[in-house]
């Protein structure tokens, strides 16, 4: 994911688990989600009250026992009832403060993180990586889903617990010092080895959990083999091999989980061990101190109580610190998305509008390389007159798709510039650009909704009549009539209830509704049945009429009838001209054409 992370974020990622990185993340996180800060002071105040209360209650109880029951003068009933009354008030105040604090925290963190999630989602749509690197999409989805969920769990549970635990440790230490500073030191000395060893085991813990996560990824991938690849597994009789791969990945996941569990169990247990040691030490040294006149009997017993106040928060803190680190890493990833500058920036209000009417385009000495990749377009220079029909031809990887994307400003060239209607594309506001310059991708991507909703992606708010008219204009009335529920037909996930050809038809109608002046079209390659093929061809012809059109041609038949053909080869514009001239020139195009003619006419003879 390095390509996605800005330099500043990369640095803090490298500095990994250290506190500075964590604090920086926290600060930036709070800055990005203002709702998290709203009323934070009150929430923290309530947290202090709740923490104080939960620490004070045992002390009050202990003093009740000490002074009221075990006092030198025997049982002091009035004092007991006074203390019990006070304790009762503290219990109620603590519970109410606890409720108010938690509820406020849930509300503000959910609000803040929902805003963060939405902000990150919006930003992802501005990132070029989304349209360039399809493999990274899954990772981007997790930035706005599971990563945000992690942060939310952290803020509401472990983060809060860490703060409360530390608060309780401070309070416990203060109360203990009030009784006896010597015994306080004894308790701290008993826990010191644990705290030191925690700092040492922390990196191991982090690694162990990282291993668990990666083993889950491997396992999911292996498990998908017999499901997604069912027919391959069956056809090649590789069930045994597949099962072995799955079993291995499940085994790896099992042992990674157990390794992590072992570390957790041992740290958890050693906290208890330190507690036992502290208890014994306190009793023995407490008696010695008592004999020296420094402490009462009650003081010693009180201390034994206080040690348990110490063990609880230490155990909790050891457990949640690992979770906290994972959460901080998640937060950092979400922030990383937001801090990645959008390569293609909308000039917005400051931008100019495209002139009305059909649009010409000029591509001037354009060079483009994908980030940390090879140069895919080199010094391309083309003039596209308004209303011209241009075919782009070339082998896979020749740069023709990149050329098309630059025309729609899905990215900006590294060198040179693209102008449409005489305006540099970088200066055109998106409000004016999108809708007037439209690209129809190769695979007609549809959303899991009705046909009508999908068509309205082209023209928001279009009436049902307009939609049906568009279908008719493209000559698709007979196809439409055969749909089970007309405009209300559900197209299914990614449009899979429709055939590939039908999806392409919907994409064409959608583009027609957008009514662009420059249309960039990546011709579909997958074979559809001849009837649909004819429909697509006819609809396409009507769609292109009167517009400037750039078509990435996979079928040379499309190229034959273009006003001009651009032939790309290895990132360069190798040839340009009309069909006749290029066939005559005997270059790359002539070769491609000859082999295509040979194929399609072999059989007809």
């Amino acid at each position, binding site marked *: 994911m390095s390509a996605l992370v800005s330099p500043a974020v990369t640095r803090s990622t490298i500095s990994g688990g250290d506190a500075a990185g964590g604090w920086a993340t926290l600060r930036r996180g709070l800055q990005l989600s203002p709702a998290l800060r709203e009323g934070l002071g009150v929430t923290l105040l309530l947290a202090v009250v709740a923490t104080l209360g939960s620490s004070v209650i045992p002390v009050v109880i202990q003093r009740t*026992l000490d002074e009221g*029951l075990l006092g030198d003068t025997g*049982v002091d*009933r009035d004092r*007991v009832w006074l203390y*019990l009354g006070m304790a009762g008030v503290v*219990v109620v105040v603590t519970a*109410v403060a*606890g409720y108010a604090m938690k509820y406020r925290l*849930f509300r503000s963190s*959910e609000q803040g993180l929902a805003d963060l999630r*939405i902000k990150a989602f919006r930003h992802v*749509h*501005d990132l070029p990586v*989304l*349209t360039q690197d399809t*493999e990274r999409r899954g990772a981007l989805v997790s930035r*706005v*889903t599971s990563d945000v969920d992690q942060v939310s769990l952290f803020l509401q549970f472990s983060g809060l617990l860490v703060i409360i635990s530390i608060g309780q440790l401070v309070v416990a230490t203060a109360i203990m010092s009030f009784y006896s500073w010597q015994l306080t030191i004894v308790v701290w000395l008993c826990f010191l080895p644990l705290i030191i060893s925690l700092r040492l085991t922390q990196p191991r813990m982090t690694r162990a959990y990282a291993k668990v996560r990666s083993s889950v990824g491997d*396992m999911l991938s292996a*498990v998908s*083999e*017999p*499901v997604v690849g*069912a027919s*391959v597994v069956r056809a*090649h009789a590789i069930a045994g091999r597949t099962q072995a791969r799955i079993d291995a990945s*499940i085994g790896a996941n*099992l042992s990674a*989980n157990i390794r992590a*569990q072992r570390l957790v*169990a041992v740290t958890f247990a050693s906290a208890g*061990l330190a507690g*036992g*040691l502290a*208890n014994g030490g306190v009793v023995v040294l407490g*008696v010695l101190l008592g*004999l020296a006149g420094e402490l009462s009997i009650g003081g010693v017993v009180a201390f034994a109580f206080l040690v348990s106040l110490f063990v609880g928060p230490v155990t909790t803190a050891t457990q949640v610190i690992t979770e906290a680190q994972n959460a901080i890493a998640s937060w950092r990833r979400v922030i990383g998305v937001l801090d990645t500058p959008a390569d293609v920036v909308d000039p917005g209000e400051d931008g100019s509008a495209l002139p009305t009417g059909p649009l010409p385009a000029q591509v001037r000495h354009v060079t483009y390389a994908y980030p940390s990749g090879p140069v895919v377009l080199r010094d391309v220079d083309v003039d596209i007159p308004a209303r011209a029909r241009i075919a782009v031809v070339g*082998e*896979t990887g020749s740069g023709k798709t990149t050329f098309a994307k630059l025309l729609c400003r*899905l990215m900006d060239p590294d060198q040179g510039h693209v102008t449409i209607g005489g305006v540099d594309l970088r200066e055109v506001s998106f*409000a004016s650009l999108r809708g007037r310059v439209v*690209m129809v*991708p190769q695979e007609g991507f549809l959303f*899991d909704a009705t046909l009508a909703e999908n068509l309205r*992606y082209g023209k928001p708010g279009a009436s049902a009549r307009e939609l049906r008219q568009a279908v008719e204009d493209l000559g698709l009335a007979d196809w439409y009539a055969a749909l089970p529920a007309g405009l209300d037909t559900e197209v299914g*996930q*990614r449009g899979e209830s429709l055939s590939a050809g039908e999806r392409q038809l919907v994409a064409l109608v*959608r583009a027609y509704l957008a009514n662009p002046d420059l249309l*960039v079209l990546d011709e579909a390659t*997958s074979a559809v049945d*001849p009837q649909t093929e004819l429909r697509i*061809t006819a609809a396409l012809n009507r769609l292109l009429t009167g517009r400037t059109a750039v078509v990435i041609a*996979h079928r040379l*038949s499309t190229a*034959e009838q273009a006003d001009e053909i651009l032939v790309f080869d290895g990132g360069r514009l190798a040839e340009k001209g009309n069909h006749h001239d290029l066939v005559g020139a005997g270059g790359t195009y002539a070769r491609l054409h000859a*082999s295509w003619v040979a*194929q399609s006419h*072999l059989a*007809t003879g």
Partner: protein
Amino acid sequence: MSADTLAGAADRPGEGATGKGFRILGHGIRLQWRMFSIAVLGSLVYGALTVADAWVLGWATDHVIVPSFERGRLETGLALVTVGLFVAVATLRALGVIARRLIGGLVYYRLQAQYRRAVTRRYLELPMSWHHRHPTGQLLSNANADVEATWGVMMPLPMALGVVAMLVFAVVAMLFADVVLTLVGLVVFPLLFVINVGYQRLLSPRVARAQQLRAVTSEVAHESFDGSLVVATLGRAAAETERFARVSYQLRDANISAGRIRSVFDPVLEALPSIGVLLVVALGVERVMSGAAEPGDVVQVAYLFTVIAFPVRAFGWVLGELPRSVVGWRRVRAVLDATGEATYGTERLPGDGPLSLSVDHVGYRYPDSSTAVLRGVVVDVEPGRTVALVGLTGAGKSTLSSLLIRLFDPTEGSIKVDGVDLRALSHESLAGAVALVPQHTFLFDDTVRENVTLGLPVDDSEILEALAVAQAQGFVQALPGGIDSRLGERGTTLSGGQRQRLALARALVRRPRLLLMDDATSALDPDVEARILAALREHSRAGGATVLVVAYRKATIALADEVLFLRDGRIVDRGPHAELVARSAAYRDIVDAYDTAREAHVDGEVRP
């Protein structure tokens, strides 16, 4: 372990969800009873020693602290015994914690692994028709999230059982200290338990709803990012953000609603033991005043209260997990109980070289469908011939090629190669002799080499040769690691045409005696397709394979010695392409469709 044993805990009519949940627990315990017993033992030790800790403190108060103060000195022996007791109790308790958490975790993770293996094993055994009836996402979650949900309850279970013991210990210890004060415990502990159950009952539907909304949020993000090209060029990013914001806010509200329940119950559950202690002290004062109890007894009971308060919640965790467990189990069971394994024979195909193919009155009807896809299909292909299957979408071409590799079995008639019924052949023998190249293939998250060989022991020269025939050597060599480059999720993305070429190489490297190509070159540029077809012709002439190819394009059809024309599940005509063109108007319509499409906008240009 057989799927049969794992299936356990059968449904009983009229049984409630909680009863069902307990039976799942019982089943999990039976499968891992040794480890589970150790975990529970650890939990018991932990519980007993937590109580013992209070007892040691009480003992130290009465026998060490008070007497030492009275005597004015601390005996060394006594000091050592005190420290020794505390440390011994803490050590034993630590061991208990390790047993409970580590061994308890082991039980949970092992059950998960065991069931994941069992579920995926079923995926490999169940027939394609079963796979087709179940959405991919569902099957993936059956093996993962559902297994996890089923056994999630095993994690807190040893703790909860240990708590039972702890409660018993505590109550006994209290009874020894003071009977009346114990009564407070007998009121407070059940109250804690009841509140906890109510808490979980209120919480779990809210958590489930949040979980479901989380899935919806993820789906919207996935879809929106997948459609990014459409979203970008149509300028719909703002509208998409609105759509995402709607579900995000629903998720926010669901989380807040669950959070509200938590905010109410957590402080109550924390306060209750404190109130119990206050009650004990209040009552205790009166008891001590009346001489019915010693101050030490009151201290001990009070301490027991604070110690027990937290672990009692483990009950709530178990009960809260149960409904999730029942749902997960039902889904997992649906896979384990599915029937209809694909069965194979034991015969092997003798000899080598191209196979003859004989399809005898074959009919096929998809399960739950009333119309037949294939009807009375009769085909005889001599060894080494190349046959093209031509027909409109839905004519049954893909179904027929699937039957030839036994992805499905015909519902009528039989299929033989070299005179042997396909169903009599062993799976290995069939897969070794017949290879299918589909239009869309699955690539494994592995290297190019592994994706081609799929574990077949072949040397590099054979892999390279297969790649060469499939016109894939060029792009494979251009990959950073050549044939050792990783593909898939964490590797290189291949285009549709590149995937098709790898699928072809995958089939060719097996040296099939019958090669089935189901529209396998559709995503290729014409130029590349032509090179493949030429190479394939060379290849099949040299190696000798019978080839059956499903095709639309004339160039593909041109490869064939003979054409089978399929319409509505029947073979309506067969013969050389030229003859079919001459005598069948319907056939002409189909194969000329591309040319017709082309001529529609060529405007009468004259071509050779």
